[in-house]
């Protein structure tokens, strides 16, 4: 048997290929490493959402006025929620709830939307897995897989979800929604991925009471984490153990 010939062409090819791969991957790895830990650097469009981040909201009810509906109008406009004059079947992603303590007479107003739970019951019960939680904590409905069984609507403790009861046209391109599927607040995921704030938060700070704050709960340097660490905040139905990403101050 002849000795195996040393093939310089093959060896150099392999070396070059390795170098090329390294060069191609390095910027991505560097950016990913930086982006995952620092809030300031935006996530590149081609990159996946990371579980190092957990998006959340803090709503200061001392600044939430009963007569103000800016968050609701902004959400409807942003996501193309047209009312059809049928309040029982029209979709609502966010609503203002008026709460009254019958024993003391104290009243309060607060916006309620999908709470983006850490352990969402809607995700547990979905038969096809259409209801899912993104690694960065946003709970969404994958309308490609949703069969419209409405089990998740029954399971949600916060009445956050709606079923689309009619055919839709001219949806917002950034917020697809269709007849026969279930939907709920997406935390304006299309805006978040574009490094912007949810529409309700933006509207509240622009024209509302400035009650809503959005940020990364996993980042100890973010404004929301600092406030949550300083002031007492509550979650709705905290007893259910779902750890929602939406917190309220002054509930």
């Amino acid at each position, binding site marked *: 048997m002849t000795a195996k010939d040393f093939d310089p062409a093959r060896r150099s090819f392999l070396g070059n290929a390795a170098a090329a791969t390294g060069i191609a991957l390095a910027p991505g790895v560097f950016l990913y490493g930086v982006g995952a830990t620092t809030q300031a650097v935006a996530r590149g*469009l081609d990159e*996946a959402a990371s579980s190092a981040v957990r998006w959340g909201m803090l709503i200061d009810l001392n600044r939430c006025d009963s007569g103000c509906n800016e968050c609701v109008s902004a959400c409807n406009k942003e996501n193309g929620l047209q009312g059809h004059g049928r309040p029982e079947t029209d979709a609502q992603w966010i609503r203002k709830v008026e709460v009254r303590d019958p024993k003391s007479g104290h009243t309060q107003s607060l916006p309620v939307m999908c709470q983006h739970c850490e352990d969402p019951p809607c995700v547990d019960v979905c038969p096809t897995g259409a209801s899912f939680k993104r690694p960065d904590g946003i709970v969404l409905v*994958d309308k*490609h897989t949703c069969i419209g069984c409405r089990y998740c609507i029954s399971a949600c403790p916060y009445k956050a979800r709606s079923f689309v009861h009619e055919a839709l046209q*001219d*949806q*917002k391109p950034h917020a*697809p929604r269709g007849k026969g599927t279930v939907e709920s607040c997406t935390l304006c995921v299309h805006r978040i991925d574009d490094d912007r704030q949810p529409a309700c938060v933006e509207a509240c700070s622009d024209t509302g009471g400035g009650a809503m704050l959005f940020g990364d709960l996993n980042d100890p340097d973010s404004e929301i984490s600092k406030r949550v660490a300083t002031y007492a905040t509550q979650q709705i139905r905290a007893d259910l153990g779902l750890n929602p990403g939406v917190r309220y101050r002054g509930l």
Partner: protein
Amino acid sequence: MSLRRYAIAMGAVTLASLAGLTAATGDVPYPDIPKGQGEACVEDTDFMRRNHMSLLMHQRDDTMRKGIRSEQHSLKECLDCHAVPGSDSIPVTVEDPKHFCRSCHDYAAVKIDCFQCHASRPEQEVVAEAREE
């Protein structure tokens, strides 16, 4: 009727229907597919013809589940370039047979249900703003 006669009768009926069908479809004209705007598509035509369905089916999972929104394969970008203006020079929705996707899909008789949820044309207010500039 005996089994043999039955079989012959069925065969005759099948052949007759097939002949009739092919005759009927024989004179459907090849569709006039509207040209997209811009210089070129993000991929070349042959690639798109064969693979646009897999792009749509698999890319969407990456976007939905992982949040990967590469502009190159975004549905919004496709619709921006492939918008077909109607008689009032506003892009048509999928209700109109002139719609880019429908021009082929109607001919191929492959039903698409993307636009039950997705907008079938660029957002109109945005377009209006762009025109005002």
